């Protein structure tokens, strides 16, 4: 069972997002970076499938040279191999991204391609589906539970008031959502090993695809009035008044 997990390096803004003057990107000088949450779960899921079925797990990302940090993190968790599709740091649109990924794996034999449901930053919801189409693999998104055995993937996801179950023949491509599992923390020996592992680096050229980003904007919050109800337990009477005004007790 050979599994490919596609991940994305994204900044982890906390309190607010600050944009560059040309409105093209988030200022990340004071921010840490992380793997998009859905994809962290995709890595964990791949490792669990491998632990049950044997085989290997490869992680791939398209991004700047610094995305090596996220590849090493994945390897520290137990991923065997890593591929970096290195860009010049500019954000690629979803068509260019998927084309580069599809080209990079065109002659590789994977039984399962895992993606995050949507990237945390751009939220395009389409790289998985485009790569799957290029490979002619069946594709399902939004998966919240996955079981792989005997050449099949049994996947389920949430619908309104129900769970839908899908049975898909491998090879297949699947995108998962946070909550499918609780990702493990990398172990210390894992981290040490990851540091020494090789990373395959390719430098694809972007095709012109779309949509074409023009500019970013931070939406204006609504004006609101903050009322301090009090400090410490002395606030309890005011809290009770509010709860009663709103008819909760």
């Amino acid at each position, binding site marked *: 069972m050979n599994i490919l997990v596609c991940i994305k390096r994204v900044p982890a*803004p*906390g*309190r*607010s*997002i600050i944009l560059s003057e040309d409105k093209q990107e988030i200022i990340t000088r004071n921010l840490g970076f992380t793997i998009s949450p859905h994809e962290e779960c995709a890595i964990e899921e791949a490792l669990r499938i491998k632990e049950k079925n044997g085989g290997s797990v490869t992680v791939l990302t398209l991004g700047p040279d610094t995305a090596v940090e996220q590849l090493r993190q994945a390897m520290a968790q137990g991923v065997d191999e890593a591929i970096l599709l290195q860009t010049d740091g500019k954000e690629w649109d*979803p068509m260019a991204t998927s084309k580069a990924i599809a080209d990079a794996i065109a002659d590789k034999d994977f039984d399962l391609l895992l993606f995050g449901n*949507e990237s*945390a930053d751009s*939220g*395009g*919801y*389409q790289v*998985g*589906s*485009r790569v*799957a*189409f290029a490979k002619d693999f069946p*594709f*399902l*998104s*939004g998966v919240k539970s996955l079981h792989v055995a005997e050449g099949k993937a049994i996947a389920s996801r949430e619908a309104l*008031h*129900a*769970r*839908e*179950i899908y049975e*898909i023949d491998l090879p297949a491509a699947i995108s998962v959502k*946070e*909550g499918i599992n*609780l990702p493990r923390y990398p172990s210390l020996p894992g981290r040490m090993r990851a540091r020494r592992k090789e990373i395959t680096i390719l430098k694809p050229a972007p095709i012109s*695809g*779309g*949509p074409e*980003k*023009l*500019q*970013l*904007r*931070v*939406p204006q*919050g609504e004006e*609101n009035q*903050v*009322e*301090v*109800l*009090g*400090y*410490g*337990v002395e*606030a*309890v*009477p005011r*809290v*009770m008044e*509010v*709860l009663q005004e*709103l008819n*909760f*007790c």
Partner: protein
Amino acid sequence: MILGFIEHDRGTLNKASLEMLTLARRLGSVEAVVIGRKGATITHELKQYGISKVHLVVHDQLDDYAPTAWAKSLTQLATSLQVEAILASGSERGNEVMAQAAAIMNLPLATNCVDVVLRESDYIVTRLRWGGSLVEEARLSGKPKLLSVAQHVFAAEETLSEDLVIVEQEVDLNDKDFRVRVTERVENESEGVSLTTARVIVSGGRGVGSSEGFDKLEELAQLIDGAVGCSRVVTNKGWRPHSDQVGQTGTRVAPDLYIACGISGAIQHWVGCKAAKKILVINTDAEAPIVQKADYVVIADLHEIVPAIIAAIRAL
């Protein structure tokens, strides 16, 4: 002509599709497409939302939801009708079907749009990023233009159309298009008050400190008929299941009151709870980001004040 993809689940309309029609009507004359014979039951409802023509896609194998088959149906119809654009709801299925249609047609797709203006032969779309913490203006070209409309942004505006014609459309699908299809469906047992339906949510963050710490939040929630929510730190630590998580990668909630205990209010949490009518914050830190955004603030240790509120309610 704009083609509006109307979602249904075994003959039940997804109301998010009606929100999509509100935006679609601004772009031109709209015709609707419904996939599978089971969808026939929803076609009459569309008349109230300005639709006078529904294309009902029929095929022997189009029984239950099958994303690729649905996407392929859309692309065949769009090509034969020469449509200007296909719009879907930014729902799970809406985005999935559009992403597959975009792959089949090798055309760009803009997801979760909140605004569209025409510029020459292109659309300038405004779309959500970061779950709505950031927006992007982008140029969308191609024919047809493919886009999905962010949920809960537009009202499903009613406008009665004079008549309604339903046209059955045959499509060319093969077994391969049905490699992914719903094979089984398990109805959820009713779980009492849920995050999406609760009038009040008592939510806890890192400040709660442990899974046992949530006992008091549970107790408070029960007393006021609410549900318990949490931040991602809490699910990551395994204190609560992910189904309780509020935020960008959890659930979007819109209760009458959201009580945030020991939650700092990172933007990814905020996008999940900002639709609440009122927000009450309990935090030891008067500088926490969520404090400025709240309606009511209590600067206190949650481990002291939550039990005190419980006692006060019990004493009523």
